């Protein structure tokens, strides 16, 4: 075998045979790449019989014979016949047979008797890599993933001095205020740390701590700790079900992940899960990862945010999100393909600090904390969530867990300027506490967008304006979500996939560090969230990113005008909050979102904050 021209690659003889006239584009692409790399390529005309191809190949004595043909039931027999002819003619003593085309998959190639099969998801480079001796699973599968630090390189320096100064003043005030106070949520977080430390080594201490923990719980959670009665709509995960999860990674090394989806991983596209069932969560996560997702987001049930205390053991919940317990988290983590970023949300309820503890103990890479959204859009008492939120941010800093600060109160109708002011205050507090927050603006057709007309003509300008204003204020990572596309999706799965994909592409084009998407049937899920819908959404997102590529998305001049309006709005809100001098009071009094907007201070946990002794 010769060495190819100058690149040190063994020069191969390749015969390319299109089996019909309209299916030779792929082969022509492969020919171009192979010739560029110094291989000797013969492209046969498309009108030869199988026997003639065999005879021509015999004359060439190639190392590879690559055929291309769209597959159907009838055609498959012809391909099988071709394989037989090559075998009987002695071509397979030397040559590898490769089939490509629409509908081709490795299992079909195997059944037909080819050495490899490349479908429409396979890039040309994979075929070239195969010719050059790379193992097939490596050439068609995704590269091994390393976990990136989404906050790396960001300084958290304010670029807008006026806003930065106000944020710092307010954040310091809220930290000082919170530092003097405590809550049952903070106590339980402390107890959980001690309990998990004592669980195996000191059963007596564990039992005592657990009793103490139980005394700080409420409602059905308390009843479970005292009587063992399951919380409504839950049932324990069986050992058999847990086994399903544990067996998921049994063959993880053998997984062939379509390389064509790698762009999602490269661009840090996250998928949220939360079927209520850890088994399904693990399966959905791996499905998403197999189709390119860089990370997955654990979505907990809303009732869990309103109850004092978290359960123990592994549970399935028949509605809304997956129960937060250390066992559930560890089970899911055990089933998820390594190398993926895993976010456990802790942003909105009465168990915020403890959730950060569990996230850390279970090995999560990221968490999610926002005092303002949790207080105004998710039902937690502002005073309580401020105390708990500060503690959660301290814990996140201690555990080196970056977290996003989400602004989903926009979905209630809170204007972006107010939501962003709240997000910036909390993020500033996070930085002051030593943490690494990521800004999470809502990328959607928010009520404000509809009412003000920001989204009347397109969905680009308002969202781009959000990115512009945030990146002009502070040098911090921006991770739109969560998930993108709210109120633009419908029950139509195709439409929802398109909207999700376009929003994701827009976010990434506008400089986002990451983006979170949901399955296309999630926005209007009247039933189970299905695997095909997940794949649809992920593939649609790849298609959108491929479509725009480096071409970019061009907003109109409106984007700059809206960005300026947003900056002024943020500034006005911050001045108001700073003038009030009491962040918690501002939450109650509506400076960061009021009843007119659709935001109501939550009542869960009201009256539970106490001064530290």
């Amino acid at each position, binding site marked *: 075998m010769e060495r190819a021209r100058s690149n040190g690659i063994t020069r191969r003889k390749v015969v390319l045979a299109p089996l019909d006239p309209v299916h030779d584009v792929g082969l022509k692409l492969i020919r171009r790449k192979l010739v560029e790399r110094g291989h000797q390529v013969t492209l046969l005309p498309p009108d030869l019989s199988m*026997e*003639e191809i*065999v*005879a021509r190949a*015999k004359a060439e004595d190639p190392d590879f014979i690559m055929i291309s043909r769209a*597959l*159907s*039931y009838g055609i*498959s*027999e012809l391909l*099988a*016949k071709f*394989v*037989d*002819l090559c*075998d*009987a*003619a*002695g071509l*397979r*003593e030397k040559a590898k*047979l490769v089939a490509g085309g629409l509908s081709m*998959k*490795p*299992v*079909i*190639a*195997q*059944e*037909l*008797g*080819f*050495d*490899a*099969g490349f479908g429409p998801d396979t890039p040309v480079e994979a075929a070239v890599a195969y010719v050059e001796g790379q193992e*097939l*699973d490596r050439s068609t599968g995704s590269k091994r993933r390393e976990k990136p630090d989404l906050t790396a390189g960001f300084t958290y320096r304010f670029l807008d001095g006026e806003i930065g100064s106000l944020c710092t003043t307010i954040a310091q005030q809220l930290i000082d205020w919170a530092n003097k106070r405590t809550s049952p949520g903070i106590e339980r977080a402390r107890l959980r740390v001690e309990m998990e430390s004592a669980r195996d080594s000191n059963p007596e201490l564990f039992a005592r701590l657990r009793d103490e923990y139980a005394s700080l719980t409420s409602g059905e959670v308390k009843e479970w700790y005292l009587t063992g009665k399951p919380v409504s709509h839950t049932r324990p995960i069986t050992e058999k079900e847990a086994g399903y999860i544990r067996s998921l990674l*049994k*063959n993880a090394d*053998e997984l062939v992940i379509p390389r064509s989806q790698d762009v999602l991983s490269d661009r840090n596209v996250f998928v949220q899960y939360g079927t209520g069932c850890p088994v399904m969560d693990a399966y959905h996560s791996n499905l998403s990862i197999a189709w390119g997702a860089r990370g997955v987001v654990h979505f907990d049930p809303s009732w869990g945010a309103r109850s004092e205390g978290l359960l123990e053991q592994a549970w399935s919940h028949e509605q809304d999100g997956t129960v937060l317990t250390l066992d559930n988290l560890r089970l899911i983590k055990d089933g998820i393909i390594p190398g993926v970023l895993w976010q456990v949300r802790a942003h909105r309820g009465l168990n915020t600090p403890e959730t950060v503890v569990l996230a850390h103990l279970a090995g999560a890479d990221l968490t999610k904390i926002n005092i303002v959204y949790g207080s105004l859009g998710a039902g937690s008492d502002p005073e309580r969530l401020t105390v708990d939120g500060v503690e959660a941010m301290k814990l996140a800093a201690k555990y080196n867990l970056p977290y996003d600060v989400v602004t989903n109160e926009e979905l209630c109708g809170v204007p972006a300027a107010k939501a962003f002011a709240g997000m910036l205050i909390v993020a500033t507090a996070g930085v002051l506490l030593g943490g690494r927050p990521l800004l999470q603006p809502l990328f959607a057709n928010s009520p404000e967008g509809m009412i003000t007309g920001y989204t009347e003509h397109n969905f680009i300008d308002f969202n781009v304006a959000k990115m512009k204003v945030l990146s002009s204020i502070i040098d911090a990572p921006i991770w739109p979500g969560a998930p993108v596309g709210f109120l633009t999706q419908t029950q139509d799965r195709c439409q929802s996939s398109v909207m999700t994909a376009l929003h994701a592409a827009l976010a990434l084009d506008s400089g986002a560090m990451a983006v979170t998407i949901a399955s296309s049937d999630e926005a209007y899920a009247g039933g189970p969230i299905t695997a095909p819908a997940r794949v649809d959404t992920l593939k649609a997102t790849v298609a959108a990113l491929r479509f725009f590529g480096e071409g970019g998305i061009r907003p109109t001049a409106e984007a700059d005008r809206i960005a300026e309006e947003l900056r002024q709005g943020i500034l006005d809100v911050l001045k108001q909050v700073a003038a009030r001098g009491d962040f918690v009071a501002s939450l109650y009094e509506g400076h960061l979102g009021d009843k007119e907007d659709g935001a109501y201070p939550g009542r869960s946990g009201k009256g539970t904050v106490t001064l530290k002794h």
Partner: protein
Amino acid sequence: MEVIGFAGTAKNTGKTTTLVEVIKYFAEKHNRLFITGIGYDGEDFDNLTGLPKPRVFVPEGAIVASALPLLKASDAGFADLKDTGVRCALGRIFTGTATSPGRVVLAGPASTRDLASVLAFAPEDSVVLLDGAFSRISPMAIADCLILATGAARSRDSHRIAREINAMDRIMGLPVIELLPGADEGSGDGLLQVSGGLFLPGQGQELAWRLNGSVKLQTAHVTGIVNPEVFLEALEEMNLNEHREVSVVFDHPIMLLLSGDLLRWEEVFSIIPEVGLTVGVRATTTLLGITINPYTPTESGAGKYIATYVPPETFLGDITRLTKIRCTDIMLEGPGKLHSWLERLLN
């Protein structure tokens, strides 16, 4: 070591069903089994039609050669894993011994060369079961004997199926003619070596001219694939009266089954006795019997298939009446006849 191949005349003709019955038979007899396949088999649903497929269960102690990920995913545990050094489209092929009975998906070597490498791992005292794929038959030349599956998926016309079976029976029954030592070294001493097969128009004429030009010719050895039309072309061009004592020897009957319309061999076999030419093969594989399957997937809308059947009794009855070789429909008649073929083989 006895190698039994399971080939089909088309996809969905019942290879897997036959294989599954044969595995059961040998498991009950406590024969040591070595199981592999030249395609992909044992999956839940067919990759092309989406219809359910028979599953392959292996007994404890059976050695299976399949792509490593599939052995690992099997619910039969596998021990003593050995890398055969052969790769298929689904990964590296390993052999493993089943530590418990269980289901397995077979993805084995696709080529004759790779199959030979994998079969080197079969113990001498084992019965090797070689599962086919589609209508692929070339690697089956390695097998000592063959069970052929055909049926409505090949053609709903029982008369055509019967004619094909008769043609295959005739081909598989061609006499083995030994060539003299040194025959492979080239033409000479009454031997004409013809390499490259007879499967392209013009090759038949070329063979005829070479035969016609040879004096004292006794044997023509044709290596490679043989298409009946091309062979007919040779027969038409030959000066037949001068070759009445000549034997034409092909490599293996399977070489005659790969190219062209199988039914054209009827014409070849009708001409040969008239001209007195002797046709034989250097090596052969015994055809144990034919399994008949009335099932055929039928397309009902774009890309969607439903399972349909021709009337089983009539279909089998017609074929049995019109052929001489052993035939059975396992689902209709049970596995008794199949077992009798295997008993005859073992005895």
